[in-house]
């Protein structure tokens, strides 16, 4: 019984209730959000030493049926996601204060409450000990983020939110639910295995059924953005930018890839995946998403849409790495959960800052803005280097491991996909920075009124950007969790 897990789970929930009941005073409300986010970060941080010593913290909550329970656990894989989610929540809370107040958005209480509730779901997913607990929190995230996507309550907002909820709940019900029940029928339990090799399936289970289950799981966690069920993500960009930043670059989509990889490694296990030859076909399948999403990103002029398709592409890196089933591949995939999160949130924060400062949404309008907003665009440039995978920024660590992983798996095709996608990343990120710093303002449109974003937004941007660089230069802190996963 490790109560720290329960406390970590309850902090965002209590924060939500606090926000709901103190919603009329915006200072108290946002004070509650900030304090909860910092408390969560501290509690998650306090679990690090035990996990690093190889301990697994467990907290059983409810038993539904024999073998089906709501149980929390913290092992090295959960810590990867928990650390990312809790630290970025802290940063995002401060950022969204600046953003929401800067734009004088409506229904800020609802916004803050749902924001905290989504983190509750994300932390629950990170600390899930079994497939049922994971499914429970996965669905909580789907439902709680609906109000955030529909926030503007205009036709565009409702359409985006409808697409969002239809994609996510339909795939979960149509694929995850039967997969979960069939796994229960075949094995008598929904618990995860204790390592990444064994999986849960006993000898003699029909291979056809296991392959079907595997496919169901890949598509069921549609938050992972794998094509063809990726379309909800660009649709969700109608949300206010802090939502796009925290949820659709970090919490929601990482819930998707975390669940997918968790199930690949801890339900199916590398041995079963090798035996049924599931790994490499998966890598090529998501490789398609990597390339195609990058090509679509190239064609988008709307900055958030380009970032969204970049996210779709980058998420598939994570699954691709794990699907290679070699140690460097799995490590490269899992570490990208961290690297992509910090860099992509920086990019979204910058997009939001640009919007608040200048009300510009399109890349073609950004010419010359870098001179008036040097810090924002500087951070944007550094974070996009991480996306491209250039040293010394975080993304390099991912690319390095993935390249080694593909070589070790003897997959020249994967290697080529990685190289091609790197070129594509450069092709759609570099022009943005170039236009901002070297482009000419259009004639007749002076810079009046546009100045650098307010400090409340700029500081979170710079913090996120700095961390992106730091985890590129000193990758060992996060890599030790990833290495513990592969054992």
């Amino acid at each position, binding site marked *: 019984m490790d109560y720290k897990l329960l406390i970590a789970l309850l902090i965002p929930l209590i924060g939500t209730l606090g926000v709901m009941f103190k919603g009329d005073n915006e200072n108290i409300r946002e004070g509650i959000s900030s304090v909860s986010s910092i408390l969560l970060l501290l509690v998650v941080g306090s679990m690090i030493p035990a996990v690093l010593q190889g301990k697994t913290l467990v907290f059983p909550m*409810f038993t*539904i049926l024999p073998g089906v329970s709501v149980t929390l656990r913290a092992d090295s894989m959960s810590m990867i996601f928990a650390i990312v989610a809790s630290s970025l929540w802290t940063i995002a809370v401060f950022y969204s204060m600046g953003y929401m107040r800067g734009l004088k958005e409506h229904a800020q209480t609802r916004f803050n409450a749902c924001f905290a509730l989504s983190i509750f779901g994300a932390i629950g997913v990170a600390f899930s000990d079994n497939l049922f607990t994971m499914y429970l929190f996965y669905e909580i995230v789907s439902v709680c983020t609906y109000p955030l996507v529909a926030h503007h309550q*205009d036709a565009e907002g409702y359409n985006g939110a409808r697409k969002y909820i239809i994609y996510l709940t339909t795939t979960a*019900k149509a694929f995850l*639910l039967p997969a979960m029940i069939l796994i*229960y029928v*075949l094995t008598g339990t929904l618990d995860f295995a204790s390592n990444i090799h064994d999986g849960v399936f006993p000898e003699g289970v029909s291979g056809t059924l296991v392959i079907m289950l595997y496919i169901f799981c890949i598509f069921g966690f549609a938050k992972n953005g794998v094509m063809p069920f990726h379309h909800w993500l660009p649709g969700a960009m109608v949300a206010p930018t802090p939502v796009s930043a925290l949820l659709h670059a970090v919490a929601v989509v990482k819930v998707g890839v975390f669940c997918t990889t968790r199930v690949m490694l801890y339900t199916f296990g590398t041995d079963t995946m090798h035996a049924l030859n599931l790994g490499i076909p998966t890598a090529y399948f998501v490789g398609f998403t990597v390339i195609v999403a990058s090509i679509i990103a190239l064609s988008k002029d709307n900055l958030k849409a380009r970032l969204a398709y970049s996210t779709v592409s980058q998420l598939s890196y994570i699954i691709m790495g794990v699907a290679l089933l070699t140690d460097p591949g799995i490590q490269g995939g899992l570490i990208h959960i961290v690297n992509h999160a910090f860099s992509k949130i920086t990019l979204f924060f910058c997009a939001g800052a640009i919007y608040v400062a200048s009300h510009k949404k399109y890349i073609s309008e950004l010419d010359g803005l870098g001179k008036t907003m040097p810090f924002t665009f500087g951070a944007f440039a550094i974070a996009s280097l991480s996306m491209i995978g250039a040293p010394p920024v975080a993304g390099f660590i991912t690319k390095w491991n993935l390249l080694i992983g593909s070589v070790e798996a003897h997959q020249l095709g994967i290697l080529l996909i990685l190289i091609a996608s790197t070129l594509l990343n450069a092709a759609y990120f570099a022009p943005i920075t170039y236009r901002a710093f070297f482009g000419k303002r259009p004639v007749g449109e002076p810079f009046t009124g546009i100045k650098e974003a307010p400090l409340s937004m700029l500081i979170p941007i710079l913090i996120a950007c700095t961390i992106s660089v730091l985890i590129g230069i000193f990758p060992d802190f996060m890599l030790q969790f990833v290495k513990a996963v592969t054992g």
Partner: protein
Amino acid sequence: MDQLLINSGFPLLSVLIFLPLAGALVLLFVKNESLCRYLALAATGVVGLLSLRLVTGFDTTTDKFQFVEHHSWIETFNINYTIGVDGISILLILLTTIIMPFCVLASWSYIKTRVQAFMVCLLIMETAMIGVFVALDFVLFYVLWEAMLIPMYLLIGIWGGPRKIYASIKFFLYTLAGSILLLVGIIWLYTTNNYSFFIPDMMWQDYPLTAQVYLFLAFFLAFAIKVPMFPFHTWLPAAHVEAPTAGSVILASILLKMGTYGFLRFALPITPEATLLLGPYVLWLSIAGIIYGGFTALAQSDMKKLIAYSSVGHMGFVTLGIFVLNVDGLEGAILQMVNHGITTGALFLCVGMIYERTHSRELRSATGVGKYMPIYITFLAFFCLSSFGFPGTNSFVGEFMILAGAFQFGIANGGFPYLALAAIPGAVLAAAYMLRMLQKIVWGGTDNPDQSWITDLNSREIVTLAPFLFFVFWIGLGPQPFLDLIHTSVTQLLHHFDAHQAQQAVAAAGAIVH
């Protein structure tokens, strides 16, 4: 009579049956409307509290009937007043006794005319419903089964909506038509079983297969109409739409369970071979109901119709669980009956509360009330989530067990679980229509009517809904106490079923040898 386990002493079941009836008699002499309401609440409340004694005194280690009472009634025809409880009926009795006080509460301000008569109908209804679940004599069962129709007919026909006469007559005729063949079946069983109406004696007998098939079809017609199974469901939306809130709640929560209870109590033990023979057809009919109910619910603009069609889908899951004939399926089915009673009952209460304010059941006139009724939508959201089987709520557990049973059925019978996979679109549709309704009520669109005048729930309404929410989470997160109550009866039922099969196989083999 070895199935009986007589608990000597206090005749608890008789008290549960006759207390509401006594209350109804007292009410006949009360003129004051307000007093009527309080007396009805007191009667149903006391019955609810007394019924808790069933749980504390229930022996979960046996499948025998408990709290049995046996009195001679019409000796000429060997008709007796025999009642008892086992694991299959106990949860349904509790569901009835616990929901009834809230039906009274839900009618507190909703019913403004003929309050006294309304409450009398509710109380007589309760007597009949409890009686049906505890009757161990087939005539007693049949009398009470038919007796339920009259107060329900009146509830719809007097206090219903604009098309109440059409709806009440349709309800009456459908149910009556179904039960006439049931009567023929009962009489055949009576003559075959030494002129006895004692239900446990009729079970697990070696009736010829042809007779079993006819009996099964008679049972099926009666119970399938009651459930209602597709395509015998058309009375349900009409009745639900026109009925007053309390009537809809009783219909959805309790009356529909009579059909599935009938399958479990009669069809499986009395006609086991016919069940095996015809069960697969019932399974696919259940799938048809699940899908049909889902699509039809998705297309509704009337909130009550939407929930009514969702019931067709949900009850399809229950019959699916019954006829896969394994432990998970059957236990899931019984639990799902209770879950459907709680969740759908609560949803009808919620719609009734909107109706009291806007005087419309149209989804369009209820759009966007979320901003002005935060307490209401909190309740509504949880009940909607429960209705489509959100993990952590009651319906998820039931659905999970039923589908687990269906997957086992598929894997055991030839390898690939077609049946279970065919039910999955129903689960997807449930999420779609429930989220659609929830979205419309809470958010609406950009052209919502002005709802700023609407008032949030008062404390009576909160008290009415809160217990339902409590059970949604209790069964959702800790269903074991409920499953413990039914486990022995279900395993024994299946044990009898298997033993009977084995015996038949031996007899058949013997016949071939000779």
